[in-house]
């Protein structure tokens, strides 16, 4: 069953199209990474899925219903980000208790154990927590609510490395024990790539690709060799990324389709796999050379 289905979704904010003709669907019980540069439209998309915002045009379905102002979606989908605000009149322990009353599948026990593990003080006020602590607390709400659609928008903002690792591990363990549909938006694909089953890459409000992680890892190859040979070889190919190295050598990234790799090796071209996180950066670069082009 499709948990999320978007068709030709457009969202205009002022003059700008923050989402431009996005169509995709997400199957039940998968972990999808929503990847994109700053301002690619990740948050906009998630807020529409959560029912906070309305799409300008196009069709959005969450649990086969339109999410905006929808009670079923609100009860079964949760959106976690670092902007979450809770009443300042309640302590964080009380917030957990309140959340438990609202979410039917809330796991009180898990929430309490995570709360203790990350050494929160029950009497603290959410507003006074540090940035990393806030994110950690919000993550506990996201995990313990066990919503059929759980969305984390940049969940690790401000967390230190140890907590980040703990979070991903907790997420995976809880996902295995209680499968549900999870969408994580992140800048750090290298951190989450072991977790993800699918990757949805957004670029300037457009869907760039939506692929299983395994396919994405094989999507492109990196070629390193003498500049003239490389240029000759990639003459009619679509170059995803190009970087001039020292001593007249060049590194290019090209799409991995029927490329005569054996032949290339004989010509002294070094072939290397392209990590998914690097690939996503290359794919969403505005220019082929990245920041270097600015300083040319």
């Amino acid at each position, binding site marked *: *069953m499709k948990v999320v289905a978007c068709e030709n979704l457009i969202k205009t904010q002022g003059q700008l199209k923050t989402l431009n003709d996005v169509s995709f669907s997400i199957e039940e019980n998968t972990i999808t990474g929503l990847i994109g540069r700053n301002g690619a439209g990740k948050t906009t998309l998630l807020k529409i899925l959560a029912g906070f915002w309305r799409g300008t045009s196009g069709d959005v379905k969450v649990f086969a219903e339109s999410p905006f*102002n929808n009670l079923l979606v609100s009860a079964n989908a949760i959106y976690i980000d670092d902007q979450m*605000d809770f009443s300042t*009149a309640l302590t964080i322990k009380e917030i957990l208790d*309140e959340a438990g009353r*609202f*979410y039917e599948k809330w796991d009180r026990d898990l929430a309490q154990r995570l709360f203790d593990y990350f050494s929160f003080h029950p009497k603290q006020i959410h507003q006074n927590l540090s940035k990393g602590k806030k994110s950690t607390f919000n993550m506990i709400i996201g995990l313990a609510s066990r919503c059929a659609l759980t969305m984390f928008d940049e969940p690790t903002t401000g967390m230190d490395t140890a907590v980040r690792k703990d979070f991903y591990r907790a997420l995976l363990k809880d996902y295995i024990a209680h499968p549900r549909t999870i969408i994580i938006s992140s800048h750090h694909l290298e951190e989450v790539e072991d977790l993800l089953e699918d990757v949805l890459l957004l670029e300037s409000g457009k869907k760039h690709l939506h692929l299983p992680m395994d396919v994405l890892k094989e999507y492109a190859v990196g070629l390193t060799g003498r500049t003239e040979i490389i240029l000759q070889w990639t003459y009619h190919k679509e170059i995803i990324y190009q970087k001039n190295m020292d001593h007249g050598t060049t590194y290019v990234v090209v799409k991995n389709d029927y490329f005569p790799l054996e032949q290339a090796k004989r010509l002294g071209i070094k072939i290397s796999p392209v990590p998914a996180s690097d690939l996503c950066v290359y794919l969403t670069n505005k220019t082929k050379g990245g920041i270097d082009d600015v300083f040319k």
Partner: protein
Amino acid sequence: MSLSEISLGNLVKKQFFYKLNAYTGVFSSMVLIQVIAIFFSFGAVSSGSGRFGVQINVDYHSADTLIIFTMLWAFINAVTIITKKYRDDDFAFVTNRVSNNVSNMLFLVAASFIGGVTAILSTFLIRVISYFVLRDHSVIGYDVMYSVQEIFSGLLVVFLYLLLFCALGYLAGTISQLHKSFVVLLPVVVMGCLIMIVIYGSEVLLHVIEFYSKETNTLLFVGKTVITSFLLFAGAIILSNRLEVRK
């Protein structure tokens, strides 16, 4: 995949109790305002006259200041709970616009009731303070008695006035949430209209106030205020139903 089903009524109930818990600021501001109002009540209207060597001073210890202050609180309180900060807090948990509005409405009814009770009780406090502090023994005596019925009808009237102001504030708050410019435009338009009414000497405003304040039939009064409040709330709900949240 099993989805949690939640009924609107059940959700409204949960939200209502959540709000009683979370919006404690509303009640602490009420206490503060009423304490200030009690203080102001002692700077009460005083008029004196003297003739033939006899000086008569009449001090009015009126609860009007207190009631007006509480009405102001009701209005501001309703505007506050519809502001972005409160709305974002509400949308952290399960909700939709209708359930949020209905629970806000119920919360305001509860707040008006509590405000009404404390306002009525404060009028007695004013007397007690006058008696002991100002040594004004005329305010408590055999001839100053209130029947239980009087107290309750007083409570009802104050409660309904507060509710009316809450509903007015809630609608004003909702309108100002629709677009940033309304925060400035709304007071300007309202003030502009009031000034126009005064300049043209129209008695519309007077009639409106009299419509509510001069009603002597309890049942009619209840009907007028409840229906008006309901219409104001309904307007707010309809307006905010398309509002985007959590910018």
